[in-house]
């Protein structure tokens, strides 16, 4: 059980490539933190620095209040689950789990107890004598988890552990990882590029972009109040509609194209306006209340995904395309015109220059 503290951690590779640019995070004991971002955002580098597999250029990393900058990975009291599992191919499952414990000089009986216990939790007891190559992808994943569990570490580090699994197994293992982490209560740092995985697992999300933190917060906070256009478009699927708007005589209108009118609460000349697909409602024969968003757009495509459908529609006069979530029973023909609205509370205003959220 431990807290992890990162204080303005930087990583500069040879040739002045700055992969991580001064990241600070305080991770509470037992917390499940997910580092999420597109590839190349520095999330894996950050995780590997916590593990001790990469040197820290500047800044400090503390695990359980102990400065670990110069501590060997083996002595940081952490366990790591790798994307390709990194199981020792020539060792049985049992020895894969036991290897780290043996190296620490643990007593045989204790090793045996821990391995059996981990095997019971992960339901891999019957495979203990097998070699990794005789296991399926899901089973290998469990062994990789088991190798982390037996160490009873201060923290688990996960490096995209589910990305080698097929979609169905991925969902199943996702649930299992979360349940396991809850019952063990071990501080965890999890790296993924999959925003859905990030949302479902995290106590708190850390959204990274180009080596910097864009936002830290609970999944719902991040979803409801994205701090920037980057977060807004990265979290949520389909992504939030982001429209370039400018102030006109009657509130805000599109910078390019026609068919939108929105309130202007901040009194600025231009914004990026964000609206989530599920916050747009079709208005049938009613009038749009004053001060609400009003959109007129032409349907391009109706995309049913089962429980719901998505409508892709365009503004007139060369305006952008937007996505609207509708019920699966809706029948909007391509070419038909839609009148849409949204509650002003669900509109997100971003600075058009730096993409930062405007509040107040």
């Amino acid at each position: 059980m431990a807290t992890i503290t990162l204080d303005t951690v930087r990583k500069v590779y040879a040739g002045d490539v700055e992969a991580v640019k001064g990241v600070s995070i305080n991770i509470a004991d037992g917390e499940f933190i997910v580092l999420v971002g597109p590839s190349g955002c520095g999330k894996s580098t950050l995780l590997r620095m916590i593990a001790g597999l990469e040197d820290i250029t500047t800044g400090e990393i503390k695990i359980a209040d102990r400065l670990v900058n110069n501590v060997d990975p083996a002595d940081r009291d952490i366990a790591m689950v790798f994307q390709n599992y990194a199981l020792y191919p020539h060792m049985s499952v049992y020895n894969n789990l036991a290897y780290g414990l043996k190296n620490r000089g643990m007593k045989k009986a204790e090793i045996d107890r821990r391995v059996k216990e981990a095997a019971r939790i992960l339901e891999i007891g019957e495979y203990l004598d097998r070699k990794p190559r005789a296991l399926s992808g899901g089973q290998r994943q469990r062994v990789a988890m088991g190798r982390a569990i037996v160490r009873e570490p201060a923290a688990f580090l996960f490096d995209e552990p589910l990305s080698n699994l097929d979609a169905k197994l991925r969902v199943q293992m996702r649930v299992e990882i979360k349940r396991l982490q809850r019952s063990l209560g071990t501080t965890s740092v999890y790296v993924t590029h999959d925003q859905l995985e990030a949302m479902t697992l995290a106590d708190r999300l850390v959204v990274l972009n180009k080596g910097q933190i864009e936002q830290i917060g609970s999944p719902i906070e991040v979803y409801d109040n994205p701090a920037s256009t980057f977060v807004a478009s990265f979290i949520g699927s389909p992504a939030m509609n982001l429209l370039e708007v400018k102030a006109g005589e009657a509130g805000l209108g599109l910078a390019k194209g026609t068919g939108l009118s929105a309130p202007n609460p901040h009194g600025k000349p231009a914004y990026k306006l964000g609206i989530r697909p599920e916050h747009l409602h079709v208005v049938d024969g009613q009038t749009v209340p004053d001060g609400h968003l009003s959109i007129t757009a032409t349907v391009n495509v109706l995309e049913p995904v089962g429980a719901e459908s998505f409508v892709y529609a365009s503004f007139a006069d060369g305006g952008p395309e937007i996505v609207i979530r509708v019920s699966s029973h809706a029948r909007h023909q391509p070419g038909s015109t839609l009148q849409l609205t949204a509650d002003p509370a669900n509109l997100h205003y971003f600075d058009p220059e730096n993409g930062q959220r405007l509040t107040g």
Partner: protein
Amino acid sequence: MNRLKLSDHLILILGVLFMVSPVVLAFITSTHDALTIFRSGLQFTPGDQMVENYRKVMFEAGGFTKQVDGWVMLQNSLILGLGFAIGKIVISMLAAYAIVYFRFPLGSLCFWIIFSTLLLPLEVRILPSYEIVQSLGMVNTYSGLIVPLIASATATFFFRQFYMSVPDELLEAARIDGAGPWKFFIDILVPLSKTMIAAIFIIMFVFGWNQYLWPTLITTDESFFTLVRGIRQILQVWVGSQIPDYQEAMALAIIAMLPPVIVVVIFQSWFIKGLVESDK
């Protein structure tokens, strides 16, 4: 699509005959006595002198060489083949490990020095090599026979290629599991290299066993002769003799080829894998 024709099998059978029949004839020759062969030419059916011929070649000194019999030469061949293969594997595994898994000053210089040996076969630097070994007093010693042959970096190159293909995450996992450089090498890398070691062992054993020029130069004392080296001795008896001992020459040839052939045939799949993959 690929309809099999009789001609395909015919070509293959001809190929097999071309490859196999010389050795079969050599074997048949080794089962006759010298006079039969000399009087009525090469025989095409086995004779009755096999046991006698092989016994003579294996256990009677004299004949081709004055002091040693086939048994001693067989032992020397084994020492050369095994010593060379094992020495080369151990030395090159260590060197490749240093090159791939360590960051250290002069690392790339060491790399280039070692791999420059791939440029020049022993044959082109044979005279100075001989003189150096001689000046070190290593003529007519096993180490003089074996060690200079190890200088070429072929196996180091193979192991380097193999280590590079081992996923980085294994090293990372091992470091988190508390394994230092030695432990990682012994516990993880060596067991992982098992097939590779086996393949290289076979290739190197055959290579060492079949050495001819170097043993010819470095061993003048007959008690150090290998079987392949012994072939040269046959020639000197052969030149100018009235009735050459074809049967004993061929018996020695068969004995000299048997161990490497057996090893290659039995461990065929490993050997081919090592040969083909390591050259990539």
